[in-house]
């Protein structure tokens, strides 16, 4: 069986066999020269032998991914093919919108409609888990709308401030 597995932005092409009589599933990462034999031990617990060394691996399903624990390192692992289909044409170029990373309460709104702002300039300050976070301009431009106010409860995805980007090449002092 062939798999394309994705961790962070790296794709691992893996060729694997069905389980043998002792329950070991043998596989290799193409191009890496790493062979492994993996066996299911208990709920969420696998045992992995690779290149003569063994380790216990723990896993838990999370949405379309699988959390995997190897030697103190937790990774969210995806099937690259499924993942690609799922994401489709979604652009992956960093945050372009002014939205809180977590549910939060707005404590200050320095952004004013019509103001010109530089990339990185503070637009909204929110508070979550007793910490203040400053949401800054993802690019330089002019504030075209402010959709929040002090005291508002806001959530990720909610656009708090809209910015009309500067034309390419233009800068302001």
């Amino acid at each position: 069986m062939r798999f394309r597995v994705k961790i962070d932005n790296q794709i691992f092409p893996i060729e694997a066999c069905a389980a043998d009589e002792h329950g070991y599933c043998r596989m290799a990462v193409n191009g890496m020269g790493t062979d492994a034999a993996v066996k299911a031990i208990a709920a969420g617990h696998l045992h992995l032998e690779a290149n003569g060394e063994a380790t216990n691996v723990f896993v838990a399903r999370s949405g379309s991914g699988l959390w995997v624990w190897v030697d103190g390192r937790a990774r969210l692992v995806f099937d690259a093919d499924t993942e690609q289909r799922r994401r489709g044409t979604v652009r992956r170029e960093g945050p372009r919108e002014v939205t809180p990373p977590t549910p939060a309460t707005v404590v200050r709104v320095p952004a004013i409609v019509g103001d010109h702002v530089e990339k990185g300039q503070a637009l909204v300050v929110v508070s979550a888990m007793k910490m203040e976070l400053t949401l800054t301009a993802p690019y330089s431009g002019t504030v075209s709308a402010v959709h929040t106010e002090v005291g508002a409860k806001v959530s990720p995805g909610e656009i708090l401030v809209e910015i009309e980007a500067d034309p390419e090449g233009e800068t302001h002092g």
Partner: protein
Amino acid sequence: MFSKILVANRGEIAVRIMRTAREMGIGTVAVYSEVDRCALHTLTADEAFLLGDSDPSSSYLNMDKIIDVAKRSGAQAIHPGYGFLAENAAFARRVTAEGLVFIGPPAAVMANLGNKTVARTIMAQSNVPIIPGMTVSDTDPARLLQAAEEMGFPVLIKAAAGGGGKGMRIVHDRAAFAEAAELAKSESMSAFGDSSIYVEKCLDRPRHVEFQILADEHGNVVHLFERECSIQRRHQKIIEETPCPALDEELRGRMGAAAVAAARAAGYVNAGTVEFLVDGAGRFYFLEVNTRLQVEHPITEMVTGLDLVRHQIEIAAGKPLPFDQDRLTRRGHAIECRIYAEDPEADFMPSPGPILFVKSPEGPGVRFDHALYTGAQVPMQYDPILGKLVVWAEDRHAAIERMVRALKECVILGVKTPIELMIDVLRSEPFRTGDVHTRLIDDHFSSWQPDRALDHLAAMAFVANEILGPVPGTVSTPYSIGRGMRSPWQTLGAWDMTR
């Protein structure tokens, strides 16, 4: 002795307090908010009472409700844990006025020490060295800036009412002062209900060294040696150890004596912590007194062999300390790593969500105080601490290796944690050599990235899991009954932080 106590807190500290109470034959009462119906502290107590909705002001900060539960349940004393109402003098006063016992210092002492400028004045009068800076707090930007310019940048802006890094800002130059002061005031107001701040000289890469003290109602005061708490992120400790590699017996003795003097000057009773900064020349300065049990108290328990919660309860019940300073000894080396639900790749942003799998580290010299189980929820409303991993061993080197081993055994899936970063910090040259200071994480790990060397093993485990099928008992989704909603926090890993 009390027959029943109420623990006015949640999470790992509430569970830890209940374990000692149980061993003392004392009944335990938990309080909880809506989102904590299935929290481990709720499940661990002999009795549990719903306070209200999940907002802290309706639950863990709601004095009326907590005191009402204490009376209804017949609890005779209240242990506040750390955070929430632990350092709230008004609460301590209310508890006492209602005929209950507050397991902590007297309200008046707490009020004095809770105000950082008053505390600085008390210490200065008792010849405990203090950091150069203001001894009167202020809210006026102009006067604050003036004080800052007089002592010279960099300076630290601090909340007068605060602690734990809340409301604290380093300011490197005049230009940044005004906004930093605004932020500090606002954070201080939301955290402590008081926007007073003050300005202190910012020492260059000081060590943060604190002394645990115990004081009874009969005038006995001892210190239980120091904790080195320099490893911080966002001005909050994340790795602590004892003994401090930088103290020799002479300096330890002088600082311990200063800690006891500070406690006596303040009229302290119960467990407390006197924090100092130590500069490169071995000079130490009083920072503040934490009038509560500290998060990091277990490392002191490990090297002294004492149960601090037991002594807190006994002191609150009026018992005298069963030992004097000469009887107390340190042995071995202990380290604590605080395991938060936070993303070390995204400036330690909180990462609440469901715990999809958890397995505690075990073996000699390992203790994991936590409030986790597979299927538990880490709510977004509260401090995202999951637990404290503590090890002790014969010496610092062995303790570091034990901690690395324990961190690798401390399996937590479903939320981001700093475990991987901590392994790298513990193995780093600056930490190994004991050359730690409060900027270590910023200096050496600000652009930390996970090591990708084992990612191919994780990829192969994924494939094996696909082929071998879901192993019986794997928890794919948290149980829906009585749980909070799945929060968007759990997808936080995919967000880039703008700060």
